[in-house]
């Protein structure tokens, strides 16, 4: 089990809060929405932690962090880059939700060749005008298959669910911030 090291005091002797970063890779943003479902408990959370890169802060680059939460699987070259960057910067990296844990619904495309998927969507798709497969160099290249995050970097904790409920996320964050063992009651373990 990975533990957070005690570096909670900065040079001037002030107590520093643990830093949390979050990212959405190939997911639907549902896990981040579920995170926001902790509702007013977010006020308690910001007392306990400082947010780094996250769609919530709109900070674009991840800095040194204690906890990184990853939503979504790995479907393109940019996902790989962001995930590796998170692994480099976060002491504890957490796979959040079905897509991060096992590829989820996006990984259902693994049943088909990548070309078949592109042709289906951009050439033969219903209502497509001026059919062409997008090839702008700014668009991250798609991977051949969608992968769960643990197939690309080492992951310390897994929170299943599509999405994991706000209570699951809340329980996890409280336990990890308190340095406790991560345990969930039956009602908080779901794959759907």
């Amino acid at each position, binding site marked *: 089990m990975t533990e957070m090291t005690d570096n909670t005091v900065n040079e001037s002797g002030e107590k520093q809060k643990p830093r949390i970063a979050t990212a959405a890779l190939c997911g639907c943003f549902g896990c981040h929405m579920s995170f926001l479902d902790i509702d007013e408990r977010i006020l308690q959370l910001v007392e306990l932690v400082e947010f780094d890169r996250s769609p919530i802060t709109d900070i674009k680059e991840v800095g040194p962090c204690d906890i990184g939460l990853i939503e979504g699987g790995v479907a393109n070259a940019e996902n790989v880059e962001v995930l590796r960057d998170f692994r480099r910067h976060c002491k504890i990296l957490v*796979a959040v939700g*079905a897509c991060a*844990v*096992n*590829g*989820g*619904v996006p*990984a*259902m495309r*693994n*049943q088909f060749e990548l070309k078949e998927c592109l042709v289906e969507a951009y050439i033969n798709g219903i209502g497509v005008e001026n059919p062409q497969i997008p090839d702008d160099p700014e668009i991250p290249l798609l991977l051949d*298959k969608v*992968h*769960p995050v*643990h*197939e690309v970097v080492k*992951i310390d*904790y*897994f*929170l*299943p669910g*599509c999405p994991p409920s706000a209570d699951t996320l809340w329980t996890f964050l409280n336990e990890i911030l308190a340095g406790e063992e991560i345990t*969930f009651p*039956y*009602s908080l*373990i*779901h*794959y*759907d």
Partner: protein
Amino acid sequence: MSTEKTFKLDGKSIPFQDGDTIMDAALRAGEYIPHLCHNPEFAPHGSCRVCIVDVNGRHMSACTLPAAEGLEVDNSSERIMEQRRNILQMLFVEGNHVCPGCEKSGACQLQAVAYYTRMLSPHYTHFFPKRSVDASHPDIAIDFNRCILCELCVRASRDVDKKNVFSITGRGLESRLVINSASGKLGNSALSASDKAVSVCPVGAILPKHVGYDQPIGDRLYDNKPISVVGDVASANNQQENAND
């Protein structure tokens, strides 16, 4: 003075009769041993290995091991639970089990046993095998992505329905379920919706059509209570049928 024969399961005395397996005696005593390919209505199969227990220091499948006087069976230590989790993780990565996209979710025995063992991730590298869905039958669909090769449908169709609709072919990693019909499709097999074979599948592989979401997610068999309390998918289906009769 009773001459009842017993063995010990997690320290508890479990009575048994000659010919019982550890599983038979435990089920009768109301003790839960996790299992997938076992169904007390059929001869033991011993293929899923989820019912692994430690018996006097050896790891055995409870559904095939004959009960014997004086055995000490460990059914709940963390060591045994971890092995079960590993077996389940292998079952998950070997097929395509996309719970959010499966209409059996919440009433699936594979999922329920995984919840029971506190499995949080598949751990291994996914195979992402390419398998098909056969929806050619008007009342029943089969999604081979989710088949765990428990052979319950094979046993039910052969031994109860007397139709022999299903078989396993191939060996090792090549093993797969096939349909015994001229086209290999379910649509022109002898299967009908009321067959035993349709109600025994522990996962979302064999599915009756048109009822998928009649019972909402959240209210399903394993959504709020563990399998150790509410029991198997097949016995829940039996109760349902009896209630409908």
